[in-house]
């Protein structure tokens, strides 16, 4: 199984995060207090959810650059829906967000599957199209906090067993994706498609369809995050989460997901997201200007990809063999 090879990379990344937190705590001890760590986790929750969706797509040798635009469009739609019909129950809104997100992801997936257009072109295109549509439906206006209902904005912040619902949704997503990737046929075929598409075809896996499903999954998660994001920050406008798609890709790359597909793990994606989350939250604490963040995540991507490429070359083959063995 895949898990045999992965922990090495995950342990190194986990260790790096612990060292980082140790360094931060020498400057500001309060950072590692459980309450603050819970805050950091909650702040990182959207990134974690999105990174899982991106991971699935990258594993199948694709990339989804439209995630943040999908998030923003879904967020705007549910916010406008809430303004128009404040009585709409939250589960219904969440269902709409997931379905709408999945629909947009499916458009990406269909273009990649049926027309074999390179994923980067498809999602660069849909990224601008989705953003443009937000402007069209909202007329460039903002949906502000006072227009949204209390239930709508309150849901992600409601505390449950000491943690906000937002954090719980992230944890639940991690568990579901962990099980899906390791225990379901779809999860295994996602690895197989990325590891060796030709071999996957001969084992009876429909490569294009698997990629389509991966895009639909990432779209669904982007949609879900769209509602959570808009509700948490209590505002929706055209540019929310602008440029966030790159942070999501960064989380995956840092987490050891190979951009060439087939190599990666749920744990890696989550740790990659947490690494970026810790950096982001620590900068103001240790008196570094938040303007450093972009350069730091850029450097982290470069270091991680250089590191993973060296470590991954032999491991990729081992994973392939064991994946072929288990399918």
């Amino acid at each position, binding site marked *: 199984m895949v898990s045999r090879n992965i922990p090495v990379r995950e342990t190194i990344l986990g260790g790096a995060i612990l060292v980082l937190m140790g360094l931060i705590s020498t400057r500001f001890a309060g950072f590692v207090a459980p309450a603050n760590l819970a805050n950091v986790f909650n702040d990182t929750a959207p990134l974690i959810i999105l990174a899982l969706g991106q991971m699935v797509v990258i594993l199948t040798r694709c990339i989804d650059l439209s995630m943040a635009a999908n998030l923003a469009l879904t967020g705007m739609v549910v916010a406008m829906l809430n303004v128009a019909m404040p009585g709409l129950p939250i589960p219904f809104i969440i269902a709409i967000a997931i379905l709408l997100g999945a629909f947009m992801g499916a458009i990406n997936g269909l273009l990649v599957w049926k027309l*074999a257009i390179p994923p980067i*072109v498809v999602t660069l295109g849909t990224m601008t199209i989705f953003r443009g549509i937000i402007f069209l439906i909202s007329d460039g206006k903002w949906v502000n906090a006072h227009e949204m209902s209390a239930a709508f904005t309150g849901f992600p912040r409601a505390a449950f067993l000491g943690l906000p619902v937002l954090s719980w949704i992230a944890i639940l997503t991690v568990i579901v994706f962990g099980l899906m990737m390791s225990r379901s046929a779809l999860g295994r075929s996602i690895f197989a498609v990325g590891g060796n598409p030709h071999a996957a*075809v001969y084992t009876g896996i429909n490569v294009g369809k698997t990629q389509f499903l991966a895009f639909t999954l990432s779209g669904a998660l982007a949609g879900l995050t769209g509602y959570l994001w808009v509700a948490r920050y209590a505002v929706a406008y055209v540019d929310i989460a602008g440029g966030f798609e*790159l942070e999501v890709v960064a989380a995956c790359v840092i987490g050891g997901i190979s*951009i060439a597909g087939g190599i990666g793990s749920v744990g890696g994606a989550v740790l990659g997201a947490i690494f970026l989350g810790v950096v982001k939250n620590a900068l103001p604490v240790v008196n570094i*200007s938040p*303007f450093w963040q*972009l350069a730091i995540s850029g450097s982290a991507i470069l270091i991680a*990809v250089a590191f993973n490429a060296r470590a991954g070359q032999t491991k990729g083959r081992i994973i392939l063999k064991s994946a072929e063995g288990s399918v």
Partner: protein
Amino acid sequence: MTDMTDMTVNTRHVPNRLNSHAYRTLRSWEALLLVVAVAIFVLNSFASPYFLNAWNLSDATYNFTEKGMIAFAMALLIISGEIDLSVASIIALASTAMGLAVQYGAGTPELVMIGLSVGLLCGAFNAIFVTVLGLPSIVVTIGTMSLFRGISYIILGDGAYRGYPDSFAWFGQGYIYWVFTVEIAIFAVIAVIYGVLLHKTNFGRAVYAIGNNPTGALFSGIRVQRVKFILFLLTGLMSGVAAICLTSRLGSTRPSIATGMELEVVTMVVLGGINILGGSGSIPGVVIAAFVMGLVTFGLGLLNVPGIVMSIFIGLLLIGVIALPRIWAMIAARRSQT
């Protein structure tokens, strides 16, 4: 069903594009683009009375000149099977470096040198990661895209550099002759240089060969990594040139300068008929694509369409130009089966 999937897998691999049929479609692609460009021109002149005005058209060229300069270098890079998503961030960093130099009293020649060198250095930085360390260019340039712009943010924060010397304004605001701007002249010169480089030199043949089959190219004696290194350098250099023009035109530098321009550059290249998977395409195609995009943006602008709605058109254009020939080929294949 198995046949279907088999087909999908195969289409993902770069087929041999040196056969005559591919050349014919390539030719017709540029012809098609030219027709589209003329059609847009005619439509625009009917849609708005302000379109057919030499000075307005001259202003409209700014919509594509800076992007076009980068697009030529990007075209070669994409033909060779690589991509550079950091070009807009290189512009930001080069522009920031020039703005910083102005604060220390640099004159126009120094500014030009600085802009070009920063571009070259950034290109070399990308090139080292891709060719020496052998990393995929898409991840590397997504990383440097954050890094280069990140450095601009570190230097500038939420501030801005102004106070460029008056003579520096020539690049982005000057005219060579009548309505012909300095930028369109630079654009034309670069187009000719890249056209010759790609279509008339051994280097250009090597670029095609690498894009079609890197291993084959290596075995036939082409120094694949060195060619790719040069292509990244050229892309960086062109981003430096674009940075000089854009900074000179705007007269100020913010770290958010040219955000999202990489997308428009890639769109321009793909619209110009360059295969995104590498191996085929031509410089004349990119030139026409630049004009098409410039005319579309200018025409929509005259009709008061907001910029973000134009981006829908750009996105649709990007997907459409790739999707339509494939849909057409699918229909043709289905017809020939029955």
